[in-house]
């Protein structure tokens, strides 16, 4: 996967992976504790952080998901960026 990625890109990708993991963990907890306010605050904090990191990554290296696939640029990066089997991610 890290065929042609520079270390900063890899680092950002890993951090997104960690924050995403945290939101998944807290989602599972909230599924069984739907009224736990503290858990919801924790989830919101990391969800906002993840979305920001995804936007930052998309601006630099291209969108990781369609939700951050920016449509106002002149090209559809979603399709133009390297595919996973081409060393993309």
């Amino acid at each position, binding site marked *: 996967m890290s065929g042609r990625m520079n270390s900063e890109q890899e680092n950002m990708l890993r951090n997104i*992976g*960690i*924050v995403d*993991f*945290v939101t998944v*963990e807290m989602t599972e*907890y909230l599924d*069984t504790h739907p009224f*736990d306010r*503290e858990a919801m605050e924790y989830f919101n904090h990391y969800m906002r952080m993840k979305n920001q990191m995804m936007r930052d990554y998309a601006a630099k290296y291209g969108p990781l998901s369609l939700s951050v696939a920016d449509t106002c640029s002149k090209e559809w990066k979603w399709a133009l960026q390297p595919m996973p089997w081409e060393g993309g991610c």
Partner: protein
Amino acid sequence: MQDYNFNEYFDRFPLAMAYVPWQHLTQIYEDLDKAYCTGTIFPELTKPFTGRRCVK
């Protein structure tokens, strides 16, 4: 961490049923990188298989 006083609750639980203590949000790993490698953000759920009988 003793969740319930088991003796007090035993009469309400029918026999031959499995019970899982309810998780309470007590701790979350500060170091999220370690949590990521461990596989959970909850220290209480960190139960690595140590290849032998479950001893504390």
